[in-house]
């Protein structure tokens, strides 16, 4: 029974967050535009040689997702704080982890939608030839996004309520995400070029291990972070 109540709470929070985003649209549009802008800047820095562009496509894509994603995570709490709604959310009966799960799922949907746009633009701008193994690339994208979003949602719960939140979140988040970035970038790149060194399997395992470890750790730690 209790678990079913938690599922309902999570669904309510996801729905609330997504509705807010859907009605304002400004948040999603600006974050997705920033992601695209990052790709253009990377293209200018690396191009116009098409071999170099193809070579750097995976790295540029992941960095664009990371830079734009950080804005989404802080926003997710900022909207609550501006409306004075976070206290009310915490006062509702039920487990605190349900709040984290709700925010995490909402951010996951938000960033995945942004990723669709960024990947589409990236394929065009970086002249990527989509290989027949593209479903595997989609899988890696989702695993990578899960790692970024779980830690991002967790650290934003602190940074959004501190001074200097704009600088604090990337400062805390980026070094922590280096294993995710390395694994996602190398696996994506390897698949784009046909996995000649047969290395994708190992990186996918590392990515999955990272996701599981930090999902569990952030769920436990969220209680301590949100109550003060």
């Amino acid at each position, binding site marked *: 029974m209790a678990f079913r109540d938690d599922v309902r709470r999570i669904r309510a929070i996801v729905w609330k967050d997504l509705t807010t985003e859907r009605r304002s649209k400004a948040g999603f549009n600006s974050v997705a535009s920033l992601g695209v802008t990052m790709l253009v800047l990377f293209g200018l820095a690396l191009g116009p040689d098409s071999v170099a562009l193809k070579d750097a496509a995976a790295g540029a894509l992941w960095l664009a997702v990371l830079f734009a994603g950080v804005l989404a995570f802080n926003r997710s709490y900022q909207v609550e704080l501006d409306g004075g709604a976070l206290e009310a959310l915490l006062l509702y009966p039920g487990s605190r982890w349900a709040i984290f799960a709700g925010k995490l799922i909402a951010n996951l949907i938000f960033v995945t939608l942004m990723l669709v746009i960024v990947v589409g633009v990236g394929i065009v701008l970086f002249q990527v030839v989509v290989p027949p193994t593209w479903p595997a690339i989609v899988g890696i994208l989702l695993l990578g996004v899960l790692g970024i979003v779980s830690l991002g949602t967790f650290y934003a719960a*602190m940074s959004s309520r501190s*001074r200097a939140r704009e600088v*604090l979140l990337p400062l805390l988040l980026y070094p922590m995400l*280096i294993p995710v970035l390395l694994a996602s970038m190398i696996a994506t790149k390897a698949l784009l070029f046909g996995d000649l060194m047969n290395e994708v399997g190992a990186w996918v395992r*590392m990515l999955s291990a990272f996701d599981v470890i*930090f999902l569990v750790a952030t769920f436990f730690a969220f209680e*301590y*972070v949100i109550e003060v």
Partner: protein
Amino acid sequence: MFPDSSKSFDPPKPGLWPAFGLVSFLFFVFSQVFAVLTSPADLMMGHMQKMWYVHVPAAWVTFLSFGIVLVASIYFLVKEDERADLLAASAAEVGSVFCGLTLMLGMLWGRPTWGVWWSWDARLTSTLVLFLIYVGYLALRSFVEDPQRRGQWSAAVGILGAINVPIVWMSVRWWRTLHQLQTNPRSLSPEYLRGLLLNVAAFTLLTIWFIRRRYEAARFESAAEHAAQKAALGDNDG
């Protein structure tokens, strides 16, 4: 705020710590002199080899300090004892300094030996990432005023950072080994090993003393904060 243990608000007594500090410092000087005088010049590196006696111990105490951060952070979350939080913060500061020192000394060694200041070697890269993780930890502490909030947030960040250390190490190693095989650490002959172990011991004692000094300072700051708060609330009988 912290409701328990009024004694945690009092500044700590120095006790035997000044003597401990003096002994560790003298031991450190002795270890350095001993190691430099007793070790012959290396065939390949010449006297650059002497860098080991500061670089390797600095790397060791970096890990020791971050281990203390992890243990103190867990203790703080379980027991809510403010002193554990202050100890974690002190160890993180000292550890970051030694981590930076390890990187700088490594660069000074790398320039004449490898010909470059920096190489994207697995060990260098993961030490740099470790440094950045704890810079984030210290930044978080400096941006949060409320002691309870600062304690719980930085404990969570400290624990997550420590969990990530082996994962970062593995990922960076894989990233490197795909491109180039790592060099094996050469076996040490005893005349080098003696000096090295001696200096590791000396650095450990010095680090414990540094952390203790920083911890005392943190306790004084905290005691001053609590006294100011008490005065502001008009409670003058304590």
